[in-house]
């Protein structure tokens, strides 16, 4: 009997907690409000089901508790009821899945005009690369990574020379411009995660993964690693700054390219070999 | 992963076929008494071992299917360099076939109650199996001497992995075979070892089949076959 009361308290408590607690997601700073909306739809549907099932159970527990002389009903099954419940569940599932799949299709199809930015993870820091004047990133190979070529850019690739390298610093991006984040790692799995952008994706050594988003709010955001990458995992932090176009251009003008930073050494090494 | 999914689809098909005959739509609350015509009780222990073996083979099949699936996924990467298959594998394949034939012979004999021939078949099977294992080790040695080390290339790694896993299963079977020989030597009647011989023959046939598949895989025939099928479709 106490159980029935506790069940009701759990439902009421959970709902109250949900609405009153100060703990909720960070203010969004990207175009993925769709994702938040899908989460809200899921919250409403699942919350209703949770409340309904537990409250109904609580009612049963109260109403049909054992009393002397009381006897249970004998009802092996009720096909009609079961089919109804199955149908309703299917409707609920479709209601959650459909918007989810539409948003997913949006999520994986990058707009054609999106610019590119590369994030490289290594234990336990972030480095960034922008395609530079030609709009193309130079190809890379982890086997070339060294102190004279920390990004492992293939020296022969003509697209690589003008790539803007941003090591151990904040990545700046212009507001309202879709950007495709190309993600790679030189050692273990990492995951580029900015809570305010909602998007994240693992980085796998040996291949390049991606996601895209459009920043919608200027400011400075913390980058976290979201895939266990060894002892220093929680300390692998970085930052992204979303600028207005003018600020962004000013910042970009102050950055150095691969050619300026390393090319002389790389060419030297190449000659030595 | 296609291979894996196909294998599991096959198992699911078998399970579904079996379940379909188990009266799963019966309403058990309406039925009372002992139901006749329903497979519900078997006193004998013997079919239990047979059923057990078939499930064991399903598990081993899943194991090798997964390895083969991993093989296909890994061989898609650019660093894969197929290694030359030692000639001796042909001889080893022959030894395993002969071993299996010997066990079939033993099984034929056990059904006729001919204990002598059972013993001959079992011993021959064991000898050929030992020959197979030694031949596999020789193949490893040849590759190793020729500089194809296990970590040299993923193709090498997979070669050692699949032959090693298969070899371990053959060794496990050999232990059972030696056990069966010991039993056959002290047995008065062929029937006492009948189940052992029959189960052994089934297991051996299965491991032979697995080896054939692996052998075809190692030689690259399966890859060619898949490519051929794809060309037919397109």
């Amino acid at each position: 009997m106490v159980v029935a009361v506790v069940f009701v308290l759990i439902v009421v408590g959970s709902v109250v907690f949900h609405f009153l607690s100060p703990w909720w997601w960070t203010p969004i700073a990207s175009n993925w409000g769709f994702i938040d909306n899908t989460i809200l739809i899921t919250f409403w549907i699942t919350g209703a089901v949770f409340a309904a099932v537990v409250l109904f159970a609580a009612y049963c527990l109260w109403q049909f508790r054992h009393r002397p002389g009381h006897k249970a009903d004998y009802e092996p099954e009720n096909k009609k009821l079961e089919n109804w419940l199955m149908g309703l569940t299917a409707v609920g599932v479709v209601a959650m899945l459909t918007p989810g799949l539409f948003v997913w299709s949006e999520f994986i199809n990058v707009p054609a005009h999106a610019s590119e930015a590369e994030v490289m993870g290594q234990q336990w820091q972030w480095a960034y690369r922008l395609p530079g004047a030609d709009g193309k990133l130079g190809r890379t190979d982890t086997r070339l990574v060294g102190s004279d070529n920390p990004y492992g850019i293939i020296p022969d690739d003509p697209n690589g020379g003008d790539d803007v390298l941003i090591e151990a610093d904040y990545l700046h991006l212009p507001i309202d411009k879709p950007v495709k984040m190309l993600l790679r790692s030189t050692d273990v799995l990492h995951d580029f995660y900015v809570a305010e952008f909602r998007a994240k994706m693992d980085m796998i050594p040996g291949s390049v993964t991606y996601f895209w988003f459009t920043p919608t709010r200027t400011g400075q955001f913390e980058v976290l690693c979201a895939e266990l990458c060894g002892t220093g995992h929680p300390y692998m932090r970085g930052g992204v700054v979303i600028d207005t176009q003018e600020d962004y251009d000013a910042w970009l003008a102050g950055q150095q390219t691969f050619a300026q930073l390393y090319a002389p050494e790389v060419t030297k090494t190449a000659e030595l070999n | 992963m296609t291979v894996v999914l196909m294998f599991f689809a096959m198992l699911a098909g078998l399970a579904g076929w079996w379940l379909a005959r188990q009266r799963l739509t019966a309403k058990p609350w309406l039925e009372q008494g002992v139901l006749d015509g329903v497979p519900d009780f078997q006193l004998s222990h013997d079919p239990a071992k047979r059923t057990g073996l078939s499930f064991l083979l399903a598990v081993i099949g899943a194991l090798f299917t997964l390895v083969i699936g991993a093989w296909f996924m890994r061989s898609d990467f650019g660093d894969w360099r197929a290694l030359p298959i030692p000639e001796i594998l042909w001889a080893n394949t022959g030894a395993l076939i002969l071993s299996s034939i010997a066990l079939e012979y033993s099984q034929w004999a056990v059904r006729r109650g001919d204990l002598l021939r059972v013993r001959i078949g079992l011993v021959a099977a064991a000898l050929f199996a030992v020959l197979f294992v030694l031949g596999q080790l020789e193949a490893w040695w040849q590759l190793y001497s020729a500089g194809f080390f296990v970590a040299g290339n993923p193709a090498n790694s997979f070669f050692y992995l699949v032959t090693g896993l298969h070899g371990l299963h053959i060794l496990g079977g050999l232990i059972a075979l030696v056990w069966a020989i010991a039993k056959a030597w002290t047995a008065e009647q062929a029937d006492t070892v009948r189940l052992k011989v029959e189960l052994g023959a089934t297991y051996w046939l299965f491991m032979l089949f697995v080896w054939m598949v692996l052998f075809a895989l190692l030689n690259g025939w399966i890859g060619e076959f898949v490519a051929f099928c794809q060309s037919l479709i397109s």
Partner: protein
Amino acid sequence: MVDATHGHDAHAAEFPDAELYHPRSWWTKYVFSQDAKVIAIQYASTALAIGFVALALSWVMRMQLAFPGFLEFVDANAYYQAITVHGMVMVIYLITALFLGGFGNYLIPLMLGARDMVFPYVNMLSYWTYLLAVLVLVASFFAPGGPTGAGWTLYPPQAILSNTPGQQAGIILMLVSLILFVIGFTMGGLNYIVTVLQARARGMTLMRMPLTIWGIFIATVMAMLAFPALFVACVMMLFDRLLGTSFFMPALVEMGEHLSYGGGSPILFQHLFWFFGHPEVYIVALPAFGIVSDLISTHARKNIFGYRMMVWALVIIGALSFVVWAHHMYVSGMNPWFGFFFATTTLIIAVPTAIKVYNWVLTLWRGDIHFTLPMLFALGFIVTFVNGGLTGLFLGNVVVDVPLSDTMFVVAHFHMVMGVAPILVIFGAIYHWYPKVTGRMLDQTLGLIHFWITFVGAYLIFFPMHYLGIMGVPRRYFESQDISFLPPSAHDLNVFITVCALIVGAAQMVFVFNLIWSIRHGKPAGGNPWRATTLEWQTPETPPAHGNFGRELPVVYRWAYDYSVPGAAEDFIPQNQPGGAPPHKEGSE
């Protein structure tokens, strides 16, 4: 089809004495026993013992999260070792082993009316291999460098690289231990399957089996087919670690140093791991589904509602669980187009699972509910499972998973659904069957203390934890207070969770005390204290002797759920009781 051959007939199943292995000494009776009941107790004791190690480790990590620096020996290495071993032990060495090795061994022969498992010797080997696996895992605590800290998912490359604790020996011992576990489990699993298929008592058709057995049976079949994937993944990773192969290892630079690996695919490991790992979730869940169905039915004195649907749902969930594995990999960088397929299959599973929940609750409807300890735990299961199952709909729906994956939301979800919920069932099942195992009841007052603290406490731990994840706190963070977007109050929430976790953990000591104390001092239970219908309660002796059923095996005349049958003298009719017309009230079609 229905043939009513009532009464004891001529071929009441006699079991030839010679077929049963008889223990000859104390050693073969209690240590190297081939009696499934003894093996079950060995499995259960070992699993609970290693489970307490996992519990202690969870305290260590909760202390670190709430009071960083309080435990001086906990640095980042120790923390990651703690989460790894905690996760691995709970999922595999505790819950899987306890449900299948413990309850499976004890209940399959007894509930089906068999003398023992069909291969008792192999069954014994299964336990000893399992014990060896546990010992190898424990040995890694004493190995140089300690146990592995790669996370329970053991993702390469970091699992075998030197910036992960336990790289020296811990990871090797972990992989060897898992390989041993798979081998041991396969031996046990063959027994469970074949016993269910071929050693059922006369009259025990499949559709008369209690749902407990259905759950364990389907879970075992799944485990037999899923564990090879773990086996293959472990063997291949051992090759990578020991022989320098590159199955999973791409070319990489570790702290400025080029390693000799090249070309391998970390994603390949993830596919293999989750091909095992997802069915594993249901390997843990299905026995819990089965057992909880029987607990609810027995203690609500009412037949389980929709038995056929319950069976079909188990089979469908079991089959579907093999085609959803990549929903653990939505943000792993695999081909994003897989997301559509796996999100759909994942959400389809919600339908049969929901049906099971409805049917449990509908079994309560118009029941005669006794609030016994097993019933309380079963009810606790319903709440936690519904909660955890529903949050699964967030994570299964591919795009919703993107912000939530790898956050505390995931941690909260899977603890609720495959930690708390199955463990509440394990407790309920122990309170339910302890009287059969020992002949005595567990103490009611201690049990109530245990239940309320565990149930309410666990809910208070894991429900708020979802909100940490929604805020964006990543999982597997040694420290999280300095994350810029977190309000200071998030740390208060962590402190609250830790306090709850310490209390819930302490309450388990009450349970252990109860288990031990009641062996001698519990109230004598009699043969069938819950007035249940299934065969294990109808044994001539309690605890059941070797061979389970005395001279004659039971014959089964009815399904397992004849509770409160209209017109019957008692509110239950044992399965082996002949006679009585079928109840007139039919299920409507």
